[in-house]
């Protein structure tokens, strides 16, 4: 699903140019659950943003489901992203002024889905995430775990092929963290590809494969056979 070759990303400030990603090569197959790990500042989030088409690489090739994404304009990236990708963030990134229901509904609106259809899909996903009873609440009225369930609901409501999770348990206590990881695992078992950035060893064990990044380069990759052993 994802094929990355010789990917480079550099940032320029007034005085220095920093190389955030250097010569990254990586393939992620459809249905895979991959974790990207590494210390702070190693380029994990940059990589995830490029995979998520929020950002363009400076050099190299990135193919998503056979489409070259590297040189696309923002509008084209938005088109490709829509409905194919779901995002889960560490700080949830819910819109404070919208209710739970409205937050989850948002991506469907931009897919120009009609109201009845949206209603149906949002209902199903909120039920599934066990947050339906809170649909009229605003994000600040929910606990962190609940907020992240809403964020995951929003990520999956379009039935995306790929979910990108940036430290999804970083702001949660361990109980809520485990719950979120279980949800992601469930989604993966149903066929959704998941790429997750994490600091947490525990979380990385949920993945099929762990990619270790250091100073913008992949240093090791390991297969997790023990997947599910922690469940």
């Amino acid at each position, binding site marked *: 699903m994802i094929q990355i070759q010789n990917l480079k990303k550099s940032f320029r400030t007034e005085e220095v140019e920093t190389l955030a990603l250097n010569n990254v090569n990586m393939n992620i197959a459809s249905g895979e659950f991959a974790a990207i790990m590494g210390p702070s500042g190693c380029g994990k*989030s940059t990589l995830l*943003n490029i995979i*998520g088409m*929020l*950002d363009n690489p400076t050099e190299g090739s990135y193919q998503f489901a056979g489409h070259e994404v590297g040189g696309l304009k*923002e*509008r084209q990236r*938005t088109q490709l*992203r*829509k*409905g194919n990708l779901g*995002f889960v*963030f*560490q*700080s949830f*990134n*819910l*819109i*404070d*002024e919208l209710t739970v229901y409205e937050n989850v509904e*948002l*991506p469907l609106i*931009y*897919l120009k889905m009609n109201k009845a259809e949206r209603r149906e899909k949002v209902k199903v996903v909120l039920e599934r995430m066990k947050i339906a009873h809170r649909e009229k609440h605003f994000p600040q009225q929910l606990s962190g775990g609940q907020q992240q369930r809403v964020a995951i609901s*929003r990520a999956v409501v379009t039935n995306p092929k790929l979910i990108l999770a*940036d*430290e999804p348990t*970083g702001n949660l206590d361990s109980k809520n963290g485990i719950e979120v990881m279980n949800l992601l695992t469930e989604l993966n078992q149903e066929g959704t590809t998941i790429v997750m950035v994490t600091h947490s060893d525990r979380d990385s064990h949920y993945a099929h494969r762990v990619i270790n990044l250091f100073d913008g380069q992949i240093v090791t990759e390991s297969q997790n056979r023990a997947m599910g052993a922690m469940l």
Partner: protein
Amino acid sequence: MPKVFGQNMRIMLKNHLKIALRFFLRNKLFTGINVLGLSIGITAFILLISYIGFEKSYDSFIPNVDNLYRVTLTTNLGGNGFATSATNHPMAGPAMLSDFPEVESYTRIADKPMAFSGTMNISYTNTLGDEIKSDAIDDYIYFADNAIIDMFDIQFIQGDAATALDEPITVILTEKIAHRFFGNEDPINKMIEINDNFKLKVTGVFKDRPENTHLPMGMIVSYNIFGQDGDHANSWVWPEFYNYVKLKPGTDPKVVEAKFPAFVKKYLGNIMNEHGFEAKFALQPVKDIHLKSHLLKEISPNNSEGTLYFLLIVAGFIIAIAMINFINLSTAKSMERAKEVGLKKVVGAPRSVLIHQFLFESLIINFFAVIISFVLINLLIPSFNSLVGIDVLNFGMWGKWQVWLAMLGIFLIGGILAGLYPAFVLSSFVPIEVLRGKFHKTTKGNILQKTLVVAQFVISIALIAGTYIVYNQFSYMQNQDLGFNAEQNLVFSAPTYADSTTQQKIESFKRELIQNPKINNVALSDEIPGKPIIQGNTIRQVHERRELGVNANFVIIDQDFIKTYGIKRLAGRDFVKEDASSLYTREGAVPSGHRVVINRSAAKNLGFSDPEAAIDQKMIFKFGPIDRTAQIIGVVEDHHQQSLQKGYDPIVFMHFESYGASFVTVNITGDNIRGTMGQIEAKFKEFFPNDLFNSFFIDDYFNRQYRAESKFGTICLVFSMLAIFIAALGLFGLGSHMAMQKTKEISIRKVMGATVAQALAIIPRKLLSLVLLSGAIALPIIYFVTKKWLEKYAFKIDLSVSMFLIPLLLVLVVAALSILSQSFKTAMVNPAESLRNE
């Protein structure tokens, strides 16, 4: 201890100043908007307040003005209910002096046309034999008793103020006018001539009068020019004289007024019984005349208190908008200052110090603003004076301590008022939360910000809608069909009456003009549209009782007037030359045999069911002391004699043999109007070498009536636009803040698949609800205010929905543009940047 405190204070102030200046430099947009908005606000405020102060100061330069009163007359003569006139009978003043011990002195003042109908040319032949001639149109010529000099504090430079006007046929004049006629000669005891046949002796020269008076004076002729005791000029049958009395110090005017009913009965009782009307007298304080008096026959156009209150509100609004900007922007910026506040608190700064700091910053901003507005005011003095049409301001204003006090007051009050709320919000941050980065803006602050923004929108919408409606009314008045031909009618003063040949000369003059192919018609008249008609009295059908007479205005015209002005005929016929009759013959007044054309209103007031019904009927009109009978030969459509603020005048057109024209109107066609005008002037000079030729077009003359309105309209427009500009400035600043606040939401939406446009759409949506709410508050208010304002116009526009929707839309567009221009940058930013987890 005090020394330490002093030192601490100094260090603290230095620290405050340093942080403030660095903050201002780093936030140039914020600082710029605040300083610019406040300085424009302060400038506009000071200018408007000065204007209001000037208008309020009318006649206050006269010592004892508190004891000066005008005696007004209210009657129901003419069957249209009671109406109050600024003028009164000539004997009112003298009788009051003899009957009321409270009265110290009186003066009667008569306007120029009371003594000289028709054109008035003043000339003086100097010692070199040169004749200096002037039509004295703008010279404010009055006739008055000598007491005017003391009562109105006329300051003599030459002559004897105690007696200058006691002798008959004397005149006193201002320095300026004296200089025009006499140059460096001594004017005292020189003779000036009116229309080459009437000589006045100059007995005094006085200082030019201040501009802020309801009674501007240029030349004053002795009152006894009207005759001696027993004449009409000293009677109870000619209520056309302004009577001013000076009461003894400490007199309550109510005491005098209480005596009026008996007084009126004593002097006017018989006349009232005979004519079947009632009369009342009242005292009107002179210092109130300019702003509060709106009577019939005002001596000069007055302003209204309402106008000043309106401008005062505008002035307040402007400065309020500027202050709201400051409060909103400072509060909005508080997010950025939170860290500084948190850290200062951690290292031990008490809240009071922080409050001082932010108040100090507010004062600095206000200080800059005051300095800039000082410069702006000085730059704007000439333009502002020409805008309001009076020299309200001059550089001498800076010599007055009140002005400095006002500036200081604005600086301190503005600085503290605007700084207080932001200071309290900023200083209230809890350090732990701030430093943890878990800082959220309070909903309370949000509500206040929204309230203030709504307040600005309300003010802006109200000002735009108000200005727009005022503008609509003015343009309606200027574009309305006036009922007469207002274009290409050139008017000039008719030649003065020289001798019995004048009438024949004017006829040949007319005949020669009409031979010019570019001249359609030439007409003579004693009135022209665009000025109040002076002559008037009651008229009635012959079978009606005398007391049922109705008021009508009399216009004396020749047989060409109605066609020259294109006034529409409704029934009967126009005058022909042979219709002319004589008012007087050697045997005396002529009571019958006259023919008149009346207009629709006059026919209606006389009781005719339709114009046709009036034709060939007889009516009685009072002209001079006696009743006369006339046959109605024609009825014409009403025309606008005066501005559309006034209704149609009922008019009786008369046609007399004797020469008494004030104006000649020439209807011109074709191009090269300037050339035709030149030919007319040459012809006039040929026939009347001793007369002055001063011409104007009737439409310009008519529109002069709207000078006060258009002045008011322009002032409103300029200051409303300033207010709106400042409000837009604030929105622009707030927009940049709002965009910053919405960065996260816009980014999230973009990640969720929104295009830039879709993500941006959230901002106008929020704005729309605020603008609609503001509209809901502002528009009903402005609806009632403008409806009330329009009531004073006899002819007015209908308020339409668009007059209210357009301002709403305009504010929405301005607000949306201000905010979107800022948000656009945000929306273009890569969402990954703003959503990064720090």
